[in-house]
């Protein structure tokens, strides 16, 4: 805890006094009070943060441009998009591309927004992801200063997807970063957001990202998160979305590895006709630990939510899925479907799943299903009977299992990247013909 205390003092001392400074102090006090969660806390029952708490991380204010450029070039998505790049949590203008932004749309790094429009930016901050939400959210708030601000005017359609790249490069000591993304989508607006987390091998960094956003009436947001870390990467993320009437939030979460990955996803459906749909893939190997928690609050009648999560676990990897749907009293005519399917490829792999429903209204259609199993022997036999060797057959079936979720990915470049990641790192190499 000491290291955080020192880092925080150094971080906050130059800040101008005002709302933000005092909020940061409150947030840090909250974090110190709560400490790293233990498995006694129900929401952290299956994820132990002891090892994370023992680590030392430093906070960076600059970055090595050469290393960052190299990493980015080697793992580039080749996507035609607006681009905002953070290197170890610090905005890198040289790598970003935010020029020629259309009117009535503001996309800027959080550090700049805090300089230019302090009040407006602070008004967006902590509204949904305040310091009481979770200890990591409080920690993020304490170190809030970098990230992105996205404001979409009414009736605006973002012409190109927005790509947020979080680079995590190797330095002498592991680095921690606490980026925060603030999003306000006006009514009838539409945008596609892609978050891409790229880590250098053996960087051992800790990323703690918070995204909070409000979707006004009939706004549409398509959100793709692609996170793939090496075996020593620590990653914690939280998304908090508030949805007004008839708005639609679609999100694709691809958590493809890390030493410890914890992804929290919360949608508040506050207006009639709002709809959320989540799909996600956990892909773990070696001794990785991947944990996804989703929560949908049906606070208004006539709201829908759909969730489809899959996990593939190999070696000694451990996966955790916790999906929760809460239907508030008087939120009638709800349709909430949740499904979770898990594939264990090794006897040492483990999955802990808990699809929960909490329902206080009677005119609802809510269901959830969870299955865990191994590859279907009859399907395997079918393939073998047609002359496909066992290795290839297993690989194909594993990929097919994942494909149900990957197929939904809206951008072909990302689809391909995920497919090759999953296929390439499967125990049996599958040669894929792409295009």
């Amino acid at each position, binding site marked *: 805890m000491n290291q955080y205390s020192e880092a925080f003092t150094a971080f906050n001392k130059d800040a101008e006094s005002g709302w933000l400074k005092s909020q940061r102090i409150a947030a840090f006090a909250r974090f110190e009070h709560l400490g790293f969660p233990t498995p006694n806390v*129900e929401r952290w029952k*299956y994820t132990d943060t002891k090892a994370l708490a023992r680590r030392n991380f430093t906070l960076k204010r600059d970055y090595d441009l050469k290393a960052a450029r190299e990493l980015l070039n080697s793992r580039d998505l080749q996507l035609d998009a607006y681009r905002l790049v953070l290197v170890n949590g610090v905005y890198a203008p040289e790598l970003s591309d935010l020029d020629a932004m259309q009117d009535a749309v503001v996309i800027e790094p959080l550090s700049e927004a805090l300089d230019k429009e302090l009040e407006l930016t602070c008004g967006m901050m902590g509204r949904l992801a305040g310091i009481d939400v979770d200890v990591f959210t409080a920690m993020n708030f304490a170190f809030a200063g970098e990230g992105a601000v996205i404001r979409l005017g009414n009736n605006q359609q973002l012409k190109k997807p927005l790509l947020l790249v979080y680079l995590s490069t190797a330095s002498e000591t592991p680095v921690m970063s606490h980026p925060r993304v603030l999003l306000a989508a006006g009514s009838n607006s539409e945008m596609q957001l892609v978050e891409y987390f790229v880590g250098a091998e053996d960087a051992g960094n800790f990323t703690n990202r918070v995204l909070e956003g409000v979707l006004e009436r009939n706004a549409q947001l398509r959100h793709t998160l692609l996170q793939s870390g090496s075996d020593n990467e620590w990653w914690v993320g939280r998304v908090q979305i508030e949805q007004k009437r008839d708005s639609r939030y679609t999100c694709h979460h691809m958590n493809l590895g890390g030493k410890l990955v914890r992804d929290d996803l919360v949608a508040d459906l506050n207006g009639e006709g709002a709809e959320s749909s989540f799909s996600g893939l956990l892909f773990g190997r070696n001794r990785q630990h991947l944990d996804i928690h989703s929560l949908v609050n049906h606070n208004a009648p006539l709201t829908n939510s759909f969730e489809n999560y899959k996990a593939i676990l190999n070696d000694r990897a451990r996966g955790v899925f916790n999906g929760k749907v809460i239907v508030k*009293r*008087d939120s*009638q005519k709800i349709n909430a479907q949740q499904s979770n399917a*898990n594939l*264990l*490829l*090794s*006897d*040492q*792999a*483990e*999955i*802990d*799943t*808990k*699809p*929960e*429903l*909490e*329902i*206080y*209204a*009677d*005119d*609802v*259609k*809510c*269901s*959830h*299903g*969870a*299955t*865990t*199993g*191994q590859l279907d022997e009859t399907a395997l036999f079918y393939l073998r009977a047609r002359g496909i060797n066992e290795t290839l057959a297993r690989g194909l079936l594993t990929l097919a299992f994942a494909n149900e979720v990957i197929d939904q990915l809206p951008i072909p470049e990302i689809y391909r990247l995920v497919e090759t990641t999953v296929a390439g790192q499967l125990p049996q190499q599958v040669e894929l013909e792409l295009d």
Partner: protein
Amino acid sequence: MASEEMEQLVRKEYKQGFVTDIESDTLPPGLDEGVIRHISAMKKEPEWLLEWRLEAFRHWQTMQDPQAWAHLSYPKIDYQAISYYSAPGAKNKDAPKSLDEVDPKLLETFEKLGIPLHERAALAGVAVDAVFDSVSVGTTFKAKLAEAGVIFCSISEALQEHPELVRQYLGTVVPPTDNYYAALNSAVFTDGSFVFVPKDVTCPMELSTYFRINAANTGQFERTLIICEERAQVSYLEGCTAPMRDENQLHAAVVELVALDDAYIKYSTVQNWYPGDEEGKGGIYNFVTKRGDCRGDRAKISWTQVETGSAITWKYPSCVLRGKDSVGEFYSVAVTNNFQQADTGTKMIHLGEGSRSTIISKGISAGRSNQSYRGLVKILPGAKNARNFTQCDSLLLGDKCGAHTFPYQEIGNASAQVEHEATTSKIGEDQLFYCMQRGISEEDAVNMIVNGFCKDVFKELPMEFAVEAEALLNVTLEGAVG
């Protein structure tokens, strides 16, 4: 259907609400080591059991009330305000030796509850070990059971007559340190049933016990222990009703089942404790730990429960599937009405290779009640080819009740196959319309649909219990419908 109508229909009176006026030999409220020594001395228990109780008590004092995690809300229980021992028949300290010696008022009580001891015993061939508060008042058909080698008696009696057998198994399934209420029970349990079925014996009749809480302010802490040796079989029925009281009463029982190789234990419960009145005043707190241990290969334990009563139910009948190819089953119907709360479900712990478990849970909430299914399916790495199927369905009657599902699955084995599905819905308008169109009244139609909803569980109940359960369901939801 309008919710007002439904509310009207939901109202019904507790038919078993009466108090038997009988002198009780009751300890003053409070709990300390002295009380435990007193209980133990009154029951002439062996020294080791007293030590065991005291150890449990000392551990209990270090534990925390598990109020925090369950989806329940109730005021903090003052454990010092409860009397921990109550025995009927202060006039005659010695326990009755036969039914003729039993206080006629007691028998009358059972009569009112519809459990005519003699008749039922004679007609249905069921041996009834009726527990009135804490002391066993009458046991029938003992001789017939003894002939088969089956021991069926109260646990106090078993402690006198078969102390080694009790010592061998007591607390091996639910250790005294298991949880808060199990520790409390271990410290202060006063009576309960004991069943021992030796090797190769199929119990010649269904065993049944009626528990009944009578004296006011008495917590009832029974302890039941059922052991089936190799290839033995037994079906055990447990039914509960309680009279109307204003204060909440605590009921913290422990049930332990042990099944050795190829043994089969079927444990059925119909629980109809007093649920409190329409304002949610009074009612029983039912905090029960039930666990079965399939110790042997191919052993099978099956839990069936129909829970219609109690203000609060906190109950998770579980199976530890240790043996190879052992089988665990859980069939449950839980009905809550008015202000009742239930947090119930099961745990299936798979340790043995090829172990299988099935969970079918049906929850019906009406009025302002809240109900949760909380279940755990844990597959350990050694449980190769383990299999689980879980289905939990909830039916909501009215718009002020709640139905919740908290299924935990911890799977540490690639060859395991685990499935879970859950649905929540209300009675379909079209289903109702269909029935009513054919001349069936609304209430009958709802009863029919609800009974159909519970059919998967009722068919698991022994015959006469199934009839009773269906009747009970209809009574509980009398008018709940619309």
